[in-house]
């Protein structure tokens, strides 16, 4: 084969490869974008959740807040619990399947994962109590600090799966 022919062939195959890569990249971007948009998990506080109205139904949400004092109700014969999760302004009623973790109690930061359902409550498949690696006595009677709440929602240990 003479050098010019080799050169032309190489250029043709380069163009072909370039075209293939561009097509693949576009296809990949479209697939990835739709994959991401279908699988978003929102981190919300009760105020965010109530402000979202209809959007909160069916979406996967991690709701973070404090367990309202006196709101915990255990169903006898099953390990499920019901309680309210509140932030400084609002509270949301939560029904959680499954036994709560050891340190679950009133006035503790929790993150529940689930969605709003038509009964007007939050159905949670997973309940997590916020781990705090530093020793700090639980804040009593203080309005919840927004920063602290965000930190709680994002500490997702145990929320895997």
């Amino acid at each position, binding site marked *: 084969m003479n050098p010019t022919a*080799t050169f032309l062939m*190489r250029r043709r*195959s380069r163009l072909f490869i370039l075209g293939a890569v561009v097509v*693949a990249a576009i296809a*990949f971007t479209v*697939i*990835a974008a739709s*994959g*991401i948009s*279908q*699988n*978003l*998990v*929102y*981190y919300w506080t009760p105020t965010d959740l109530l402000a979202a109205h209809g959007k909160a139904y069916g979406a*996967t949400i*991690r709701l973070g807040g404090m367990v309202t004092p006196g709101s915990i109700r255990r169903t006898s014969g099953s*390990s499920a619990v019901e309680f309210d999760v509140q932030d400084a302004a609002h509270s949301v009623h939560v029904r959680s399947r*499954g*036994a*709560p*973790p*050891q*340190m*679950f109690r009133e006035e503790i930061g929790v993150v529940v994962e689930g969605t709003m359902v038509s009964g007007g409550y939050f159905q949670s498949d997973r309940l997590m*109590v916020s*781990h*705090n*690696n*530093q*020793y*700090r*006595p*639980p804040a009593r009677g203080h309005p919840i600090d927004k920063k602290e709440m*965000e*930190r709680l*929602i*994002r*500490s*997702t*240990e*145990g929320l*895997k*799966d």
Partner: protein
Amino acid sequence: MNATAGRLLILASLLVSTAGALVAFAAGRSRSAYGLKWAQRFAYLFAALMVGATAVMEYALVTHDFSVSYVAQVGSRSTPLWVTMASLWSSLEGSLLFWGCVLGLYVAVATWLTRNAYEEYMPDAIGVWLACAAFFSFLLAGPANPFVLVPAQLDGPGPNPLLQNHLLMVVHPPFLYLGYVGMTIPFGLACAALIKGKLGPSILKPLRESLMLPWVFLTFAIMLGGWWAYEVLGWGGYWAWDPVENASLLPWLTATAALHSIIVVERRRVLKGWTVTLILATFLLVILGTFMTRSGVFNSVHSFTQSPIGPTILAFLAALLVFSIGLLAMRIDRLEVEGNFESAVSREGMMLFNNLLLVVLTFTVLVGTVFPLVVEAIRGRQMSVGRPYFDTMVVPAAALLVFLIGVGPALPWGKTSWKQIRRAVLPPLIGAMVFLMAGFLFGARNPWTLLTIAFGGYAAQVTLWQMRSPFAQVQRSPRRIAAYLVHAGVVIVMIAIAISSTMRYTQEVHVVKGGTATVGAWTITLAGIEQRDEPNRSATVARFVVAKNGVTKTILEPRMNQYERMREPIGTPDVYSTIGGDFYLSVMNIDPAEQSAAVNVIITPLVGWIWGAVILMGLGGLMALVPAFRFAFAGAPRAAALTLARSDGV
């Protein structure tokens, strides 16, 4: 005293690495052998200073010198000695000091092994290594100084309890650092090749080997991380696409791609620019991973609290990105193409396909990991990308990769007739059928699981055939055998992942003392609940007698560990492992007053195979290096000539 000594050593290492980098780059420009000698001396000196600083910190930790800020932060008189020593990497500043120490060792060993060879490339390579060293010295001297002098206190809080809670958490970080930091060496070599505008045959061997060693460590590190999550976190899984996990996987994917494309460069003299790009990308992903795990942008188990270190690493990452792209743009066309791609249906074609799949996987995981950060930065909304995204995107590519492990080695290099291709590609379908049937009998019904098993069977037959074939035309080199060991490991891992993730069974039960619960063929009996006091923690332990089909198998003791300085206890599961699968008990809560416990029972088939097969992968990787080490000590130029002679002989 310790604080001052440590501080001085760090400042000296900053000075030495900066000066060394300048000397090395100057020697690269002027091609001065004298300058190279000095650059090497600076490299050794940097290593000595870093090791010294780390030794000072270990001494301060062991002697409980609470006037050193890092010791005051993580030290405690009540922790066992091994925990105290491992505290070096339990928190931000110490782990960066450890990084510096590992970097020093890598740079010194790499400089020593290459001291009489590759004169063309070495000045620039040492320059890049020492420039990275200067950055980490700067971090340790300023934003993340572990040696701040603080008013001494009597006792400290001890390291993060999660570290104390399991031995694997002590072993996992060193492996991760050995993997992460080691990528600096091939990065330096690849940069040197670009600066010189040349990727000659002689440099391929050190490039491949310096990539292989950290690859092995990173492989172990990823497995240890998954194993730790499985043994400690109590949700019964080993991989959750957590940003921290992804951070360790991303450079592994590109490094794996580069290890394959280097072979194509060796054999066919093509893909030079591509290979160099992959190596640069690997190091960038290492620094991105460091940023993600060390800056607190993702607040998860491994991440540390917000600190000035985040912006500093981000600036370094940006500088590296600009440097890499600039270098590639200016020099990539100089890496001359000598060979040609003759046929897509060939071993090199399959390696290219493998590379593309690995890069697609890298992008998929990268996009899913970084997307929430970008959204939050732009729109201030907090969210994460859920697990199904990763699963649906990654599974098909991973299954195809298993298939390529079969097809690639079955095909010969270069152009081949269709008849030969058919002869190579058709017989392993027997292996695929056998595995598929076995999988079906085992109970697998998920289509992706069955597909992975079938591809695994195909790959297994090819791999075994290649390793044992008495008809092989040439004596298999140890490197080839090593590669097939790694492939065998990957096939086992992929099948075990496919089965364990789709055939897991979970049930939650509540048991009172003396009572039993039945889960499938298994029964658990709560024998009792006891309180145990240990030096650094107290534990509430639930004792379960575990029986299968009425035969007592073992006693499992899932527990709640309460650490002195922590508000909440940490639940720790207990596992009964067999070849066929694991029986896993994780306590949700224990009520000592009522003598009852709520536990999650998780039965996962084949999960133990993952750990075993990853060890096989790592050993395969080490085996590829062992003869290399021998050659390296016998004198590098001769070894390079030998490697070339061997690779050209086929």
